[in-house]
């Protein structure tokens, strides 16, 4: 039997389900050459032009930039650098109209460009360079997917699985858009060099460049430039053949399993413009500062393919192309099928902007009013994901989330084919978007409730544990006293042995309870770490160190073995709050003198810790109570009072923070899976909670009250002592 690889080599192509042939309307621009657009006076460069975390600006208002200089650094794993597309002066860093369907303003660096542009290129690398170095370069140059998704390219080029197929997507199946076509016709050699870079990084078994067969010139150019390691495939023109999943199916017959990414089945898909940009970044040292944009629509006099500096406002761009505004118009960014209608024409061109259409209402009319679904099934016939759009629509209208999930709503790629054919003009895709958003927020709430429940249960378990330990110690102490009274050294030894056995047992118990704690703790710590970076002042850290030193001395002497073990678990998780450092072991293992020493040292440390805690409370992330393995007996009262106080303060801070957080809206480019990482970037007092439900507010308030009461009680107790 022939393998898929054989069939691929033979040039076999497969079909995906459905698909449509919308009028392509590419005639206006399909033969126009790439024309560079003169540098506008101002560039508006959002720090979030990609999937993932927004970049962090590293320039201040007033500084001069050079073209090609880094102005915002990537933040976290899935993020991308932002490069200055022009020399000039940073004149503002503020919220500005975003190039996004929501239109919510995002943080944007505005550069007043200077008349002279001096390009700051990097040292060119070669294909002989180390993979790590090349990846680093792609990272530094701010390269993201230029096909529309804008996923950071370097991440996709470092998969953790061997890659069988590298697919270069040049299908460009959306109507109107000809940017990739123009690029292929004019700059095939550079594209191929970029593909070579990707081949080197991924080492794929096959590299396939897929181009829709309505671009014969581009196919010819690419075929000429490609080397033997690349297969150039003309695929039938059918929307949405350029969808990542559909393209994979057409070329290899494989389907990306639901919920997985192509890399999971050994496939990486890169857009052709991305490979061009990556090639330039690596081999020519040119970071990403411009891109090819198709400007089209019946309201522009000079439609064409333009090389546009990133950050140019769409208004400026359209004016350059002879835009004649009419009474009503649609400005669409991207294609007519999946693009979005702009609600602020001042929004800038960003990395993902491949097309701008300025169309009159005659060219792209609003759909007629929605009618009842007649169950004709046309939608189902064209759905490339082979869903039942009609049923999904009924369920979405009923808000039947279970049924929606059952019918694989989340496999919908929002291609719009169903809405395109629907005779009743039902805005199907819009229904799905809304339903998806609803389900996501519902699931988030569920998760939060679950987390809160776990925290509560863990706390109960911990209190229980502490109580038994306390009782056990009291009993042991009593026994010891009894033995001492008897005056037999024998009794002492027995008591000590007994104590050791007990201690071991309780330790074992703790350890079995630990994993749960640890997961939660690890999440909290990762967040804490981030917050720490932003909050720790030099003074604090020196004090931290002081305290650390003292404690570690004690801890070292007392329980090296245990500390080591915990250290291994927590190795990369620098403790933030003082409590994290309390990894003191159970007391009974100690000899009396040692215990005494430890107690003194601990009390001294405690006093300091208390002082520090009071200071830190405002900034510290939620103190992780779960990490307290086993406080020594002598510490207990102070400790608990302390803890309670901290908890109270944190709870207060948390409750306060809520209002602010609720007002905040998720950053526009945030897909669901990343939302957890997209917590507000300003130092969060309670970074763990990115969003709190009303339930949680209530819980926080209760916790606060309880903590206060506890603190009071303990204080009283202490006084009595």
């Amino acid at each position, binding site marked *: 039997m022939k393998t898929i690889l054989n069939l691929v080599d033979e040039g076999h192509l497969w079909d995906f389900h459905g698909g449509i042939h919308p009028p392509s309307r590419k005639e206006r621009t399909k033969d126009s050459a790439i024309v560079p657009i003169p540098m506008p006076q101002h560039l508006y460069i959002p720090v979030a032009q990609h999937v993932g975390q927004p970049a962090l600006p590293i320039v201040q208002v007033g500084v001069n930039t050079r073209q090609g200089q880094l102005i915002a650094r990537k933040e976290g794993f899935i993020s991308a650098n932002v490069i200055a597309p022009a020399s000039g002066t940073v004149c503002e860093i503020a919220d500005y109209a975003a190039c996004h369907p929501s239109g919510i303003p995002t943080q944007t660096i505005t550069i007043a460009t200077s008349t002279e542009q001096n390009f700051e290129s990097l040292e060119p690398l070669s294909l002989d360079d180390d993979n790590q170095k090349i990846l680093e370069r792609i990272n530094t140059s701010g390269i993201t997917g230029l096909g529309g998704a804008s996923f950071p390219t370097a991440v996709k080029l470092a998969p953790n699985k061997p890659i069988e197929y590298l697919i270069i997507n040049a299908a460009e199946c959306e109507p109107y858009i000809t940017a990739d076509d123009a690029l292929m016709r004019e700059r095939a050699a550079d594209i191929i060099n970029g593909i070579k870079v990707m081949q080197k990084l991924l080492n794929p078994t096959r590299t396939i460049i897929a181009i829709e067969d309505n671009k014969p010139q581009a196919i010819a150019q690419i075929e000429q430039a490609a080397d033997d390691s690349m297969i150039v495939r003309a695929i039938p023109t059918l929307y949405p053949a350029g969808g990542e999943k559909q393209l994979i*199916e057409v070329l290899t017959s494989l389907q990306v*399993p639901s919920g997985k990414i192509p890399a999971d089945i050994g496939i990486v898909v890169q857009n052709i413009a991305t490979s061009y940009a990556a090639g330039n970044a690596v081999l020519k040292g040119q970071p990403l500062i411009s891109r090819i944009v198709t400007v089209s629509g019946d309201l522009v006099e000079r439609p064409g393919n333009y090389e546009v500096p990133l950050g140019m406002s769409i208004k400026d761009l359209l004016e350059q192309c002879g835009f004649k505004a009419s*009474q009503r118009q*649609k400005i669409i960014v991207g294609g*007519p099928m999946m693009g979005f*209608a702009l609600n602020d024409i001042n929004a800038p061109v960003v990395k993902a902007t491949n097309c701008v259409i300025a169309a009159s209402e005659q060219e792209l009319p609003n759909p007629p*009013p929605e009618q009842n679904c007649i169950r004709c*099934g046309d939608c189902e016939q064209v759905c490339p994901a082979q*869903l039942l759009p009609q049923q999904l629509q009924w369920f979405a209208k009923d808000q039947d989330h279970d049924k929606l999930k059952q019918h694989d709503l989340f496999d919908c790629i929002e291609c719009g084919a169903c809405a395109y054919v629907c005779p009743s003009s039902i805005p199907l895709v819009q229904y799905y978007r809304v339903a998806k958003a609803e389900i996501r927020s519902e699931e988030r709430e569920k998760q939060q409730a679950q987390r809160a429940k776990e925290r509560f249960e863990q706390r109960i378990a911990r209190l229980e544990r502490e109580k038994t330990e306390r009782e056990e110690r009291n009993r042991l102490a009593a026994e010891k006293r009894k033995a001492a009274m008897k005056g037999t050294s024998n009794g002492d030894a027995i008591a000590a042995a007994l104590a050791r056995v007990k201690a071991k047992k309780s330790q074992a118990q703790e350890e079995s309870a630990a994993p749960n704690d640890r997961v939660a703790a690890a999440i909290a710590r990762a967040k804490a770490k981030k917050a720490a970076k932003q909050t720790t002042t030099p003074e604090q850290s020196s004090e931290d160190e002081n305290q650390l030193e003292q404690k570690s001395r004690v801890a070292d002497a007392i329980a090296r073995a245990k500390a080591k073990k915990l250290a291994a678990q927590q190795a990369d998780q620098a403790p933030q709050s003082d409590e994290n450092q309390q990894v003191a072991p159970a007391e009974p293992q100690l000899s009396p003198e040692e215990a005494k020493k430890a107690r003194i040292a601990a009390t001294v440390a405690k006093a300091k810790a208390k002082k520090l805690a009071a200071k830190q409370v405002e900034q510290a992330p939620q103190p992780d109570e779960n990490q307290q393995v086993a406080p020594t007996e002598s510490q207990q009262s102070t400790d608990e009072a302390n803890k309670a106080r901290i908890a109270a303060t944190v709870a207060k801070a948390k409750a306060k923070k809520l209002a602010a957080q609720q007002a905040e809206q998720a950053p526009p480019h945030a897909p669901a899976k990343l939302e957890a990482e997209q917590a507000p970037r300003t130092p969060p007092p309670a970074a763990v909670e990115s969003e709190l439900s009303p339930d949680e507010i209530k819980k926080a308030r209760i916790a606060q009250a309880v903590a206060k009461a506890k603190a009071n009680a303990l204080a009283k107790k202490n006084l009595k002592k």
Partner: protein
Amino acid sequence: MYLSVAPSPHHKGTGDTSTVMRNVALATMPGIAALVYFFGAGVLVQIIICITTAMLTEAAVLHLRKKDISTTLKDNSALLTGLLLGLSIPPLAPWWIGVIGVVFAVLIAKQLYGGLGFNLFNPAMVGYVLLLISFPVAMTNWSVPTELSHHQVTFSDIISVIFTETTTTGMTVNDIRHTIDGVTMATPLDTLKTDLTLGLTVGESTAKDMFSSWAGFGWEWVNIAFLVGGIYLLKIGVIRWHIPVAVIGSLLFCSLLGYLLDPDSHGTPIIHLFSGATMFGAFFIATDPVTAATSNRGKLLFGVIIGALLYIIRNYGGFPDAIAFAVLLANMTVPVIDYYSKPTSYGNKAD
């Protein structure tokens, strides 16, 4: 400057619901022509009565439900319901037959369920079954093909019979239905059924005049005409092949089986396929999108069920033709079919 904002896609295909309905209506033209040719202008009068009633009823209901009358009427679905029912009523049936049937179809079977798209059952067939059960005589009085008729019936006779139940010369429908040889004539399927119950064999029955052609005089041409219209619908993509092919295929299979097992008591496949309302049902009734199964596999199953029921009822049930019953029964299975015929979506193959 006004920027109009709408969700994607910003471009829409040209098809719309009213065009779909209009195309279906247009595709009945050959069938109507054949019916008029063989059974006279009464067919047209019935169609006009039914369509008018359908539109008026729909408008009245929409008015009561405080919905926009003109936009909804423009979806042409009421027109189509009226037309399909009009085609099913005997050409010389009294006017109130059509009126009752259509009012019931539009009011009860469609609007009471929530309007277009929400109805579980095919409205035209619900109306038809109501009439068949309530007025069995009037509903089975199909007139004789004009060529075989003993009487010359003028247009004014037709109008007169429909609205006053007698012709200008005082004849009733039954008088008109006498053939040249003075026998009252029923439809070929009706005749076959009666003959079989009387103990005749299929061969003896089909030797009669009305079977002089291959599937019943006139009826075979009517069926061919509807077949032509159906193929037109397939060609322009208004309907898909699954349902008609499944209906015809399963009817063919059943009738072939029956005929091979016992040719004397089972009509030939040809009679089953080209007599009665077979083609009309397969292409115009069963394919009603609202009440049919949705997925392609589901549609095939739906069609097979209709074909099989059609054959069973024709042979063993109390009615000579059974499109309406078969379709309505199959309508009931649709939710179950839809549930079990959900296609595997992309990336969800279990392997």
